[in-house]
């Protein structure tokens, strides 16, 4: 299935400036893998070398943080919207 993926400003350099792109797959990980084939670099920015979701990237399937679902193995369905939001973080 194909879903909409909303891309934050910092990652739009990989999507030719597009705010939203389409990705196909049955899980979040598969959708990201599909995105990578057309938008090289995008997955490396959100997934670590170990294959985990980057600590400072939040990803939401519709309204829910995927960390509270099945993380990158969360299944997706037609019509879902996957939103990528970098953390709002820092410190002294």
């Amino acid at each position, binding site marked *: 299935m194909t879903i909409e993926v909303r891309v934050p400003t*910092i990652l739009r350099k990989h999507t030719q400036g597009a705010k939203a792109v389409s990705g196909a797959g049955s899980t979040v990980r598969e959708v990201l893998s599909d995105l990578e084939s057309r938008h090289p670099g995008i997955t490396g920015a959100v997934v670590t070398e170990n294959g985990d979701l980057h600590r400072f990237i939040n990803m*939401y399937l519709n309204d829910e943080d995927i960390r509270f679902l099945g993380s990158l193995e969360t299944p997706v369905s037609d019509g879902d919207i996957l939103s990528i939001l970098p*953390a709002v973080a*820092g410190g*002294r």
Partner: protein
Amino acid sequence: MEEFTIPRSMATELIEHAQAEYPKECCGILAGPPGDPQKLFRLTNTDPDPVMRYNADPRELKRVYDAVYEHDDWEILSIYHSHTHSPAFPSPTDVERAFHPDAVYVLVSLADRASPALRAFRILDGRIEELPVVQSEEVKG
């Protein structure tokens, strides 16, 4: 030179948020049309060490983005946080975690609690540029 304009009442609210969370760091977002912050969203700092760092609650963050998305001309204009024991200047951690190149980073220092300092910065590709802060009298609306 680019300036950062914030309604005086919003600057006051932001400093009140910082004081309320002291000695923890506060964090939040200012949103509105470009150059015109109209709403302040307080966010919960969920970092395990909130005196030293901040990390906004991801669920609250999503709700703020959704609220902003509903307004055609609104953007996330600014991300603010407090430094409770150091100056109002981006720390190396702030620069490393500046994931929002389109936002102005506003810092409040409560190193002197009786005299809070508020400053604004762009943080792009590891470079810090300070913006003059202009406090306007009213929300333009």
